[in-house]
């Protein structure tokens, strides 16, 4: 198939995909955003297996007209972040449940649901909604983002005007085995504003989620999420962020289980002196069902004297697949950039695989950029050391696995949150140890 034919096929698939979906309608601003997204999607087409950025992950499940059924796992006795004082917003199978949520009014916060705001003709979000997604297709198209903007009817629009005292927590529950959710959140932090966003839960059998984060000068955004542990779930989560001068952005994702998880982050540092950290820990065991986890990061430096850090760790066993595609792009003039990228996989057996493409594209000379990627088995020497000190082999192995993942978890600043996730991960490791 020639390149022209391949593009045509993708465009045809996009048109067909939109045809089977019922395009929602809303107020003027939202309709406009949706229409623009539809035409973007028709231009770029749906992702296909031969696309460069889908070489390691098959997009089939994510572009299919319907979700593949996934058994619903009961909610944990103690869900993540349970002990943390927070403002809870609950979604069930991708639909906002106001009854189950906390009161949405809080100091320095303006929260509205997309469904409700979308019916209005004017809204503060009207110029921002879908804009970061629309800007993120060059040089690499993110068609699933455009698909999301075209189809989303659910999500929250959050405007932060100052320091928020407690984290906003989005809880994604699911009840249906075949639910197919499309969520689109928009978060705008005004100059100097500060907030923490927590996310947890599987959301749906299949989830397509876009989160647009716009940080004004000096804003500080801290994001921690765990992706539901339901084995069969499929998810693509796209994070589009724009970072102005002196802003701070930190995001951490914990993924355990899930048939297919593709986490994309497109982060644009547009101002000077900004600091960005994006990290993730993933643990997958293929004997629970398919496990395929993919982190795809595209980080652009367009400001002077900015720092960025990417730390991704994956533990894989029994035919699990871990993917990392990370790119740092330093634009001309983005001098004094300090870019760091680390991707490591620990493979606990011979059946698993790790596929990685850590990229650097640098157009400025006064920069220090580095990346490292390693793959290997448990260090036998470290294991021997622990065993020789009387630690049972099984426990020693768990300790080494947890220590390996800890590097990524340590990127979470908030200690109670970090400890909560660490203990969850420990539970997973112990349950999956041999």
């Amino acid at each position, binding site marked *: 198939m020639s390149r022209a034919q391949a593009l045509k096929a993708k465009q045809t698939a996009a048109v067909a995909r939109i045809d089977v979906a019922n395009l929602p309608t809303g107020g003027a601003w939202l309709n406009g955003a949706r229409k623009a997204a539809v035409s973007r999607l028709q231009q770029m087409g749906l992702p296909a297996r031969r696309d*460069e950025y889908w070489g390691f992950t098959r997009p089939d499940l994510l572009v299919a007209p319907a979700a593949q059924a996934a058994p619903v796992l009961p909610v944990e006795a103690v869900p993540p972040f349970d002990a943390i004082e927070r403002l809870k917003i609950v979604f069930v199978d991708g639909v906002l449940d106001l009854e189950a949520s906390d009161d949405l009014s809080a100091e320095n916060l303006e929260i509205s649901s997309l469904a409700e705001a979308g019916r209005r003709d004017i809204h503060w979000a009207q110029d921002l909604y879908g804009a970061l997604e629309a800007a993120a297709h060059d040089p690499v198209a993110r068609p699933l983002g455009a698909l999301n903007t075209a189809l989303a009817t659910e999500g929250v629009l959050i405007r932060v005007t100052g320091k928020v005292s407690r984290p906003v927590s989005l809880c994604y529950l699911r009840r249906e085995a075949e639910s197919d959710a499309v969520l689109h959140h928009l978060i705008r932090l005004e100059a100097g504003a500060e907030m923490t966003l927590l996310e947890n839960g599987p959301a749906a059998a299949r989830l397509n989620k876009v989160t647009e984060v716009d940080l004004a000068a000096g804003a500080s955004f801290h994001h921690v999420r765990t992706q539901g542990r339901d084995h069969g779930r499929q998810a693509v989560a796209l994070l589009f962020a724009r970072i102005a001068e002196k802003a701070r952005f930190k995001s951490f994702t914990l993924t355990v289980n899930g048939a297919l998880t593709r986490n994309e982050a497109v982060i644009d540092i547009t101002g000077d002196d900004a600091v960005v950290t994006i990290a993730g820990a993933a643990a997958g065991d293929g004997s629970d069902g398919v496990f395929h986890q993919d982190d795809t990061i595209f980080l652009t430096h367009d400001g002077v004297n900015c720092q960025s850090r990417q730390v991704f760790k994956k533990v894989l066993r029994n035919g699990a697949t871990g993917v990392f595609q990370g790119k740092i792009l330093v634009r*001309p003039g983005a001098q004094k950039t300090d870019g760091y990228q680390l991707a490591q996989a620990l493979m606990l057996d011979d059946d698993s695989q*790790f596929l990685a*493409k850590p990229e650097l594209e640098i157009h400025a000379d006064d920069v*220090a950029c*580095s990346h490292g*990627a390693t*793959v290997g088995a448990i260090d036998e020497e470290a294991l021997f050391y622990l065993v020789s000190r009387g630690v049972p082999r099984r426990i020693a192995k768990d300790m080494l696995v947890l220590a390996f993942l800890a590097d990524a978890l340590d990127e979470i600043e908030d200690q109670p949150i970090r400890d909560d996730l660490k203990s969850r991960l420990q539970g997973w490791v112990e349950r999956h140890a041999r």
Partner: protein
Amino acid sequence: MTKPLDRVQAKDGVDQDTVDAVQMVGEKYKYGFETEIATDFAPKGLTEDIVRLISAKNEEPEWMLDWRLAAFARWQKLEEPDWAMVDYPKIDFQDIYYYARPKSMADKPKSLNDVDPKLLATYKKLGIPLKEQEILAGVKGAEAAPAEGRKVAVDAVFDSVSVGTTFQEELARAGVIFCPISEAIRNHPDLVKKYLGSVVPPSDNFYATLNCAVFSDGSFVYIPPGVRCPMELSTYFRINAENTGQFERTLIIADEGAHVSYLEGCTAPKRDTAQLHAAVVELVIMKDAEIKYSTVQNWYPGDEEGKGGIYNFVTKRADCRGDRAKVMWTQVETGSAVTWKYPSCILRGDDSQGEFYSIAITNNMQQADTGTKMVHLGKNTKSRIVSKGISAGVAQNTYRGLVSMHPRAKNSRNYTQCDSLLIGDKCGAHTVPYIEVKNNSSRVEHEATTSKVDDEQLFYCRSRGMDEEAALALIVNGFAKEVLQALPMEFAMEAQALVAISLEGSVG
């Protein structure tokens, strides 16, 4: 063409010459002269008839023609790849001469003594001795070294034909076959049939397929089992004719336990229009054999405005077929307007080893997208990649590589280090590594850094009285040291000098 370079001398003085050249402003590409020589061209453009004509000129057997025609049919259906990080005007494949031969080569010269003196003079000017008693000069103290160890056999390829191969007889006594591939097709059809296209098949990629259809000459080497090649072998490629593509094909076979070191050099005249060079190099390494393949690629890079230069689209691959086979690629890439080249290693045999050492220097408008592939198939295989990219001017330099550990490649190892150095704020340095690991007893480590020339180092050298360009050359040579050390001595000296020349004018 700019004024002819009358300063260019034989390589005997190359050391001093290069040092002089570093200090000289203006003339930078010293191999940019053109040899005025009557040339026979095949008609412009590419058709089945041209493929037949090339085959006929080389007096090829039927099977070879069929092979070429099949490749040509396939090529017509292929699309030019567009994934590399290079940008150049679309090539009109019908506006190129696919065959150019000095008229004097119409009747094959029987020995080097019969070769047109103009051709011999050209190679002399390039510093390539086409006389058997001469050693490849340019190495201080080489004269003192045992003559036996310093001999280099040369196959000289001029446009589409090989003009001569030295030391053939002496090599034949050791059982080594070293000859133009056109000759090998006629004289050693069994070997050629068995190995040609077995590493880079005619279906491999757009440029390789094109090469299969139209390659005119190149070198053929066969080292029989257990033989250590008594001298270094080398091929020197020269493009001379205008609007002509060079499509050479190199095939080297190291049979069980054999050992050979092979050097390759390339230059071309300065011209305003870009020229295409699409070569294929295939290395076959059997059990316990070893090939060391070194390249100093110094094609004309185009001028400061990006006018002219060679498009260097090359497919190079080594197949370690037997256990404990070993291959080492070393490349110094300083020339070419656009480079698209990924010398690769298929590590099929258990305990086989692949190494790749590369320095790619781009200055002015040059663009390079180069790297390697290490495909680990056998158990306990090892590979090592050391790539140093240096960018200056408005050049773009990309490392693109693959390390793949297949499920049955247990206990394999890879270590990759890619460093990029930027000189000036308008150039680019990029790293695109692919890592695919499918077993857990293997270990893959990849490191990459990008930085600029350290101001403190520069200051240190300047404070010791070095001028800025000499200081830069010294620092860059230090940065590239690991690769330069992997080169055979003859090339190491030239490469160090080349590093300095290529960066001339990039400071300040």
